């Protein structure tokens, strides 16, 4: 089987997205991937996302960049159907996750969300202990056995490198952790629902450089197993960790492609202007 990276390297990278170009998406679809077709999102009759078409490659990090208000976060929310909670949002188009349209008629929103681990902008521990925060996901999805829950919690706390720091106080409130620790806890909590995808909504923007570095390293480690989609404000972060970049502006995808190509050889004038800092 040809890996997505190889495929992208071989093929014209414009097929990676296709807003203007004819879309050659099918070839890219592997067994685990996100494919978006004609996605439009309206919030209170404002057209926020405009006719988006793209495929997100599996087991890699895709960074979405663009100026504030371009629809990055809105887009991320369409992937785990969090817009369901806001009645003023109207969505049309198709979002295929693992070849199933998550906006289709018979889709269970809970199954969709369970596939997506979300890391929010600011860490938001639930009002319970460190242990219970990580155990929350497995428990709501029906894992009752204490041993299994314990194992999961320890495993993921170890995975994010938090276990050694908190092993003596896993039963104390999660809000007493530092903000960087809290974000790693939230990552562990997200991983504990055993998702296939990880969504990060400016997940490091509230953190200090050291904590940011830890989270970034975790993302790089995680892409072996997960497909990661990050919204970020810092171009340098995108450069550091992304495999693919999507550049959005005013609700449209302007350009997308493998990271090196995107930064070294941007095709569109708008992209060049953005990368040179003419607007932000």
């Amino acid at each position, binding site marked *: 089987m040809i890996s997505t990276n190889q495929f992208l390297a071989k093929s014209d990278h414009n097929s990676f997205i296709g807003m203007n170009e004819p879309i050659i998406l099918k070839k890219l679809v592997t067994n685990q991937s996100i494919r978006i077709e004609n996605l439009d999102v309206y919030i209170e009759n404002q057209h926020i996302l405009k006719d988006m078409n793209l495929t997100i490659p599996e087991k890699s990090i895709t960074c979405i960049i663009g100026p504030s208000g371009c629809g990055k976060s809105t887009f991320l929310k369409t992937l785990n159907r969090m817009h369901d909670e806001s009645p003023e949002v109207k969505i049309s188009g198709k979002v295929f996750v693992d070849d199933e349209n998550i906006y289709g008629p018979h889709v269970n929103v809970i199954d969709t969300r*369970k596939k997506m681990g979300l890391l929010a902008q600011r860490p938001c521990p639930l*009002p319970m202990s460190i242990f219970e925060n990580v155990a929350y996901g497995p428990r709501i999805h029906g894992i009752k056995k204490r041993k299994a829950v314990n194992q999961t919690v320890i495993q993921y706390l170890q995975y994010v490198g938090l276990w050694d720091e908190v092993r003596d106080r896993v039963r104390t409130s999660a809000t007493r952790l530092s903000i960087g620790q809290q974000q790693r806890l939230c990552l562990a909590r997200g991983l504990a*629902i055993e998702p296939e995808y990880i969504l990060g909504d400016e997940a490091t923007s509230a953190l200090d450089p050291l904590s940011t570095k830890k989270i970034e390293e975790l993302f790089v480690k995680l892409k072996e197993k997960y497909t990661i989609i990050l919204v970020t404000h810092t171009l340098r972060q995108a450069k550091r960790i992304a495999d693919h970049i999507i550049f959005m502006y005013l609700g449209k995808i302007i350009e997308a492609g493998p990271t090196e190509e995107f930064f070294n050889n941007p095709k569109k004038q708008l992209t060049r202007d953005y990368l040179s800092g003419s607007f932000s």
Partner: protein
Amino acid sequence: MRRLRAAKDKIARYLMLGIAIFTILFLLVIGLSLFFKALPIMRAKNLWVLLSSANWKPFKGDFGFLPFILSTFYVSLIAIIIALPFSILTSIYLNSYASKNVRRFFEPVVDLLSGIPPIIYGVWGTLTIVPLIANKIAPRFVEFSTGYTVLAGGIVLAVMIIPLLISITLEVFRSIPKEMTDASLSMGATKWQTVKKVILRKSISGIIAATVLALSRAFGETMAVLMVCGNITQLPHSIFDACYPLPALIANNYGEMLSMPNYESALMFSAFLLFIIVVLFNGISRFTLNQIERRYQFS
């Protein structure tokens, strides 16, 4: 010019400080004047006897307040037991489930409910709840009941404190950051799981505070309760017995029969008692709230 402005600022500041202190002084003044009015009976009788005796014969000079104290607690307790689930579930619905339009309709109506004068609740209780208990509910459990009972008082009182409880708990639920509920939902939790494990857990201290406030209100509510609870001096053995809460005692008797020795002082004692109960209750609840918050350190 500049000095004048600074002086004005200072004057305004101390003036408002004075007014603020004055407001607090009311509490002290009321407490003290009740205390001194109640002093004669506390001198004449043993305090413990006053509180623990059920013997109430003002003509003979026997003043046992136990029936009134117990009645007050029973009625308030029943009211809160009925009102709490109602209010919390309503608030949860309005906060987490209801559409904007439903909310827009509900909230003014809830506010309206809390603005209805107690006497109207009392009349409604007499016309509706009392016969309902006498004819439908009580016969299933006891041989005879007039309907003017602890239960009637509790129900009417519950209806009266529900709006208060709803508006406070709703405020508590609203103060929970959206990110927190989103975090739960994004993990695939259902709304109900989120409500149970995150929202309720996060708002436990707020709910306790709301309960205490509602209870304090319930302790003191006079008119509506007085009209439906029977006003018979006895130790109520079941919720189908008549009772006689402290506020009703004062309202019914103050200004009459004051020629009896110690009677006025006895009524003042019951007012003082009510005052102390509410103050103590607030103090204790504040203390427990602090403990809970310290334990969980919710921020």
